[in-house]
């Protein structure tokens, strides 16, 4: 019985002994890549300032995460791409004109307070980038709501300030919006392309949808949250968003403008802060959509996606505890118990 000597060291571990290819890093880096089209469009419309703002967010997010973990004598996890993703998303949620300290403060709140103080990736209750932005919006309301015209064509540094389509819709109404954009078809076209004022990465619906398609293809996200979120927004916009009574609103304007596409596909779907059970995700999406429209139509802000997602983040654990997956053999067990 000496065959053992010929083998070096046998590794003993729990089954299964083979694993799939997915890793946290692979998922995060793919999401980062899927945001590239939207980032490129943001540079096209808002110029070098888009690179500057987003770059600062990414850089400070990575540095904060690294320093915190070094300081806490933990292994640095910046390699998994999630810090970069938080920075990228935060940058895409900011206006082009913010001064340099805004991205840094936002990243600090997002990475240190929202993510790492709660235990790091997997333990955070709220979407870090959105808390970062919410903090900035409340602390620096003027800076966070001064929008520039999307006229840079990659190069122009400064642009005139203007209002976002949702801002115009809220303050001045649909007629004024039509006057600016001409026809509805033109408005839809500009909204799809991203040729409107708004946060850096939120304006180009097309670019965002290309990225979302990558995530669908790789099965990193499913239809449950984006569809229920967007459909709820569309339905409520149609029902209550019109100037001339119920069911006269324009759902497409509400769907394509503001941060809905970015939020529904890239932020509400954040694994850590949304429910894990698919049925629960539909509830989550509907909640996001309803709160978004409540804020857009009745609230003090023209845009409500950020607060809607953050509020629903609070409910994610509760939803996960109430909605269970369809258990194998469950139906029959209940029937049998009734007998």
């Amino acid at each position, binding site marked *: 019985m000496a065959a*053992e000597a010929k083998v070096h060291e046998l590794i003993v571990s729990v089954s299964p002994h083979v694993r799939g290819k997915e890793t946290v890093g692979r998922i995060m880096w793919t999401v980062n890549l899927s945001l590239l089209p939207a980032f490129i469009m943001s540079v096209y419309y808002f110029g070098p300032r888009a690179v500057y703002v987003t770059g600062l967010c990414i850089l400070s997010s990575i540095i904060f995460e690294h320093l915190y973990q070094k300081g806490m004598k933990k292994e640095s996890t910046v390699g998994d791409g999630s810090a970069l993703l938080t920075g990228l998303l935060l940058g895409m949620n900011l206006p082009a004109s913010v001064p340099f300290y805004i991205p840094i403060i936002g990243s600090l709140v997002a990475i240190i307070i929202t993510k790492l103080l709660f235990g790091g990736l997997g333990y955070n209750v709220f979407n870090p980038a959105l808390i970062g932005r919410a903090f900035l919006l409340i602390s620096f309301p003027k800076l966070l709501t001064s929008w520039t015209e999307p006229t840079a064509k990659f190069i122009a540094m400064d642009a005139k300030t203007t209002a976002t389509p949702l801002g115009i819709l809220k303050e001045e109404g649909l007629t004024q919006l039509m006057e600016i954009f001409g026809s509805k078809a033109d408005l839809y076209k500009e909204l799809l392309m991203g040729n409107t004022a708004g946060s850096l990465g939120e304006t180009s619906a097309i670019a965002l949808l290309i990225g979302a398609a990558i995530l669908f293809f790789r099965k990193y996200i499913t239809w449950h949250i984006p569809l229920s979120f967007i459909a709820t927004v569309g339905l409520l916009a149609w029902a209550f968003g019109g100037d001339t009574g119920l069911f006269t609103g324009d759902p497409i304007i509400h769907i394509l403008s503001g941060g809905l596409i970015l939020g529904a596909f890239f932020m509400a779907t954040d694994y850590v802060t949304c429910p894990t059970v698919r049925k629960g995700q539909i509830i989550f999406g509907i909640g996001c959509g309803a709160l978004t429209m409540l804020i857009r139509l009745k609230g003090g802000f023209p845009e409500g996606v950020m607060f809607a997602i953050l509020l629903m983040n609070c409910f994610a654990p509760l939803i996960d505890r109430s909605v269970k997956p369809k258990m194998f053999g469950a139906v029959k067990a209940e029937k049998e118990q009734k007998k």
Partner: protein
Amino acid sequence: MSKTATFERGIHPAYHKELASGKSIEKAKLPQRIVVPLSQHIGAPTQAEVNIGDEVKTGQVIGVTTSFVSSPVHSSVSGKVIAMAPFPNPAGKMVPSIVIESDGNDEAVAYKEDADYMHLGADEIKAKIKDAGIVGLGGAAFPTNVKLSPPKEKTIDTVIINGAECEPYLTADHRLMVERSKDVVEGLKIIMKSLGVKNGYIGIEENKPDAIEAMKSAISGEANIELYTLEIKYPQGAEKMLIKAIKGKEVPTKGLPMDVGVVVQNVGTALAIYEAVRYGKPLIERVVTITGEGIRETRNMMVRIGTLMSDVIEQCGGLVDGAVKVISGGPMMGFAQWTLDVPVIKGTSGILVLTEKEYVSSDDYSACIRCGSCIDVCPMGLNPSMLSILSEKGFFDEAKEYNIFDCFECGSCAYVCPAKRPMVQFMRLIKSQVKP
């Protein structure tokens, strides 16, 4: 080919069946020494019927039992009992075992043949099965006669032969279906007879076309036996998944196949039943797939129970450089071995050797990112993500509300987990801390 049957969810791991699927079953060399654990099954252990120094024959009973849920063990060689002591078994436990030195003659006890076996009554068949020491050869090793004796209030109307062999790498059942198709079908007919059942099914995964062909022709004259081609998906061969695929019925939670009137038996078990009832042969050998990138020659071998893995591996040319893991069974549910001096037992379907290349460490796992992949694949419709978190935090009682005891540790959740969490370990921890 008609539509393939399957269950909901599950995974598609790399199968690597081609490493051994074309290799005909060869007889392994008669071992010089065997180690026969007195307990190789689920249920009460057997009592040694021999003493050190006793001469034994091939097929002689060496471990007896009076319990219903138990199964006797036999010597698989002729020779002399040289030791009786606890030995490691493939599941990593120390089990009282009998060590027999072979005299090389392979002199067998007289087996009681019965050419007219289809006229036997149900109780006679079950007695023969019990005496032959037959247990489920798919891996679980549950005493077969118990499975064939359902309580009176349960009506069994269906027998399914499990030829799914969904564990990657393994090809033992595949080869049996190709080479011994007639005998497997005879085994199925005996099982049907013993249960008084009219409907027999055979389920085979699509990736075994030659086995499907062979079994099809073997059942061509049998009006009551139907073959189902199954989708290639893990864990298609789990009893509940197989029943769902073929009968469309879900075994109720915490229930057994008999709750929906079904008894499932593995291909190898059916063959063993045939050999026991027809030829009076006890379960002293089984087909083992020796495979993986870490073994020099992959093989399917008929191995005597009690043969040491080191012995079998040597007959396959030994391990290659860089072999790091030897697994008893398949890669999804098999047990990693710390020594090769463990015996092949009744439930050993394969010896799989993995190299550094296939090895994935579970040491560096990270927090659950709640991606939900595990929920999408869990064949039982559980929430492994939640269960793993509850287990990690020690909230074992709460885990019960998430139906932990429906988990059969197939490992699908761990396979897809991007954070590489040791999901099966988490599940086992909960099960060890709370009562069903």
